[in-house]
């Protein structure tokens, strides 16, 4: 295969394409299913093992082996398809996709051709305050190939090396209609799909580990035209940023070609993160003829409506629905809802805290603010912290019951985070309860007024904010434990009296 570098310099800020052409993008998203074992054999699905230690004759394509379908892979695929609003095929089958490549052990991939597991779905996503919809053409299940690595193994540039640990891992392929109209839309849609797949818990969607990647098809057409232009395909990217940059570059490159009266060639392109450009993978050989035919070693699948409903019923509330409910039920702003539903675990945490404490606003503030801060510093996720919704709810209640001030609470949370002890216990142990007994504070208030005649007089003379200084002094004298509202009240009383 020849790599032809385009070496086209695209001046930045080129504007003419925006008015002349419409960008049309379709995505084929691949997600590895988080099953325990591979799609057709019982090797474990595990990222990061030493090369060729998670293999067996079946996933190595040895003579005489046969595939047997992993039940959970079928179930997960159905869950994903329902989460993506697809119709589930009552009859589907598998096919052989034939081609030669060193990472493809059998010389064919078991995939689905004309009768996939699911079809005709859609995903709604948000971009710039607008809700957009992308239709999903089909979803199918197939096996992943091994991994080809190059000179990094021995430094010999004439060799390549193959690791079959990934061979036969179940892969879900989600094919959209070409409904996307900009690189930003493509990324937003991709993110929305990721979120849904994470919510229905069928894939880790771990882009760094390669369990979530996409191929993008992009073409341009004159504004108003209904026909699709010639498209190029960007393969196997697993970084939102890379794809965004690559698509933006392709957009400009194609516009430049069309502006000059040329024709875009249908081909696969590679994006080079270093040069920031795409280059063509022009092959000496003909385009692939995959010679699809029904897989004789696997029998077809028939799903009945009752089974589909059972799976549908077991799905969790999906992110979009959840966000809407948070706004409606808890009265929190859309922005907060967005933050809190970033992961299913965080959404669960918020839901429970709001429910237990009866104070959704406070729950959201604490999670979005202090708790997230602690999580980020420690580099962990919300499901890994020792802080529980019970703890947070207790903390909120302690504030609302005026047992401690908000400020004191901010110092309690890190303790809960470190020790896993409930807030009440920490407050008691450290004697952090607010002093809310007026008689206890009064004498200190009197003392502070006496020691600070200047500010006291300023206040009496009309400088409202002078009271702040006096409040501060009282708080200092009580080591922060005085109930600030009460302090304020008492000072006002005594100074105006």
């Amino acid at each position, binding site marked *: 295969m020849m790599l032809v570098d385009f070496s086209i310099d695209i001046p930045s800020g080129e504007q003419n394409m925006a008015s002349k052409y419409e960008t049309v993008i379709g995505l084929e998203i691949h997600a590895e299913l988080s099953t325990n074992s591979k799609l057709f054999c019982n090797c474990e699905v595990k990222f990061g093992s030493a090369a060729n230690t998670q293999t067996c*004759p079946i996933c*190595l*394509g*040895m*003579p*005489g*082996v*046969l*595939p*047997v*379908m992993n039940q959970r892979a079928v179930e997960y695929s159905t869950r994903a398809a329902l989460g993506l609003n697809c119709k589930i095929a009552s009859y589907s089958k598998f096919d*052989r996709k*034939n081609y*030669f490549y*060193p990472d493809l*052990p*059998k*010389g*064919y991939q078991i995939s689905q051709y004309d009768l996939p597991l699911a079809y005709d779905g859609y995903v709604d996503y948000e971009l710039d305050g607008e809700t957009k919809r992308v239709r999903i053409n089909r979803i199918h299940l197939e096996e992943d190939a091994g991994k080809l690595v190059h000179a990094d193994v021995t430094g010999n540039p*004439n060799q*390549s090396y*193959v690791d*079959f640990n990934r061979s036969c891992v179940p892969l879900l392929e989600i094919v959209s209609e070409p409904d996307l109209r900009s690189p930003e839309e493509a990324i937003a849609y991709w993110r929305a799909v990721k979120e849904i797949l994470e919510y229905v818990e069928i894939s880790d969607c771990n882009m760094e580990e390669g369990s979530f990647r996409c191929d993008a098809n992009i073409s341009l057409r004159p504004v108003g035209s209904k026909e699709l232009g010639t498209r190029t395909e960007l393969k196997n990217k697993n970084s939102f940023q890379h794809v965004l940059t690559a698509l933006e570059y392709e957009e400009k490159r194609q516009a430049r070609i069309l502006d000059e009266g040329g024709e875009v060639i249908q081909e696969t392109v590679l994006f080079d993160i270093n040069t920031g450009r795409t280059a063509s993978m022009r092959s000496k050989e003909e385009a692939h*003829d995959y*010679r*699809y*035919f029904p897989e*004789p*070693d*696997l*029998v077809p699948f028939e799903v009945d409506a009752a089974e589909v409903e059972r799976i549908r019923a077991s799905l969790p509330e999906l992110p979009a629905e959840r966000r809407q409910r948070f706004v409606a039920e808890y009265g929190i702003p859309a922005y907060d809802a967005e933050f809190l539903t970033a992961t299913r675990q965080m959404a669960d945490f918020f839901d429970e805290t709001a429910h237990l404490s009866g104070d959704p606003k406070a729950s959201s503030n604490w999670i979005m603010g202090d708790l997230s801060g602690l999580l980020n510093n420690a580099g962990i996720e919300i499901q890994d912290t020792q802080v529980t919704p019970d703890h947070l709810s207790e903390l909120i209640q302690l504030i609302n019951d005026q047992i401690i001030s908000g400020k004191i609470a901010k110092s309690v949370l890190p303790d809960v985070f470190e020790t896993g002890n409930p807030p009440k216990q920490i407050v008691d142990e450290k004697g952090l309860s607010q002093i809310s007994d007026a008689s206890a504070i009064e004498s200190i208030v009197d003392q502070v007024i006496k020691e600070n005649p200047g500010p006291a007089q300023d206040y009496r003379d009309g400088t409202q904010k002078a009271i702040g200084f006096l409040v501060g002094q009282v708080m200092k004298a009580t080591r922060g434990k005085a109930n600030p509202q009460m302090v304020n009240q008492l000072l006002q009383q005594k100074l105006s009296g």
Partner: protein
Amino acid sequence: MPLYELTAHELHEKLKAREITAVELTQSMYHRIGAVEEQIDGYLTLTEEGALESAAVADEGFQRGDEMPPLAGIPIAIKDVICTKGVLTTCGSKILGNFVSPYDATVMTKLHQQGAVMLGKTNMDEFAMGSSTENSAYQTTRNPWNLETIPGGSSGGSSAVVAAGAAICSLGSDTGGSIRQPAALCGVVGMKPTYGRVSRFGLVAFASSLDQIGPFSKDVTDCALVLNAICGHDPMDSTSADVPVPDFTKCLINDLEGVKIGIPKEYFTAGIDSEIEESVRSAIAVLQGAGATIEEVSLPHTDYAMATYYIIAPAEASANLARYDGVRYGFRATNADELGDMYRQTRSQGFGEEVKRRIMLGTYALSSGYYDAYYLKAQQVRTLIKSDFDDAFEKVDVVVTPTSPTAAFKIGERTADPLQMYLSDVLTTPANLAGLPGISIPCGLTSDDLPIGLQILAAPFEEEKILRAAYTFEQNTDHHRKRPKLSSK
């Protein structure tokens, strides 16, 4: 009578009675192999050490007086298309010339469980593609009945060794007749079970929707014993039928009262050798004499079976053989510095001509623009062929035909014309396309003293009907007792 001339069921009695030991039996088999191998060249690999070990284990059981399975200590040969752990499995091809399988086929596990003794791996047409075993990359196996003739194929080695007494039973594989045709040509019993009866896990695939493993034996009783051992649902094979396996020996009764036999007129056409037709018609008369009623049936699409087979089988094979690319195991061409060259040279050097021809045919039939005209069309005709049989079996219990249109032909006689060679399978391929069980049993000799085979077919999972008819025939004739005259070394 020398031990090698006995059947498994006869030997079992002797072993049980401790008249002989399994080790003695195994040793005497290797002695026989030594005496005849130079003439017939049936084996590719001998596994004497392992065989004696298995025999010794069987002997322990017999000595203890344990209840021993029928195949315990029985020396069996295995077609080299079946994966045997720790033993070379070449499929008669150079491309797997050094391939030692790291796992056992399911049928091997089952045979080991019975305590059977594996003598070695037998010669075959490369990747089971052929009707004469001349396509082996290693050696030409000779028919023990006439060493200048072919033993049939593709399981020629497995058939010849049983005929020659160089194995008591053997396993072969049948995709278009590759058990039944060599059984007919070598004068032994050969059976292809219903598709799905025997696990294909560990059977190196030729045509996935047609392949089945089956036994070669000297008589129908042994055939039933091996079937008992190897049949059964296998969770490692998605196409394995989850149906109960009866005790096939229970249907071995000498009586065909009430049994309806169908004779399909399309199987007695001009292309069948007249001596063969005569022999088969006599056989049918014997069956009638045993109480069966005879009825003419029609299988109107018979004439299209070969064309159908020669699209479907090569198409599936072209994909099944894509894994032989020199990357993970087997032969890799040296001096290829670039991947594409490595693929092309490995496959072109590693595969023989017939294999390449079928890969080409299959790739063509599946390629863009031709799929509908060839592959899809063939699968549709396959439906018609199957439904012919469904209709016939509504009326009759079994269908009886000749197995092969000719007796064994001379080595080299048909190698120049592939199409001519393909036509050897014209009577056997329909059963594979329809997934039916079928047996070939010896029913006579030609005037050249070459064996003639009688084929009996039944509806899916009705092996018992076949075995009953075959057993009855055997009990009323002595063709199965005839042996080739081989000179001892």
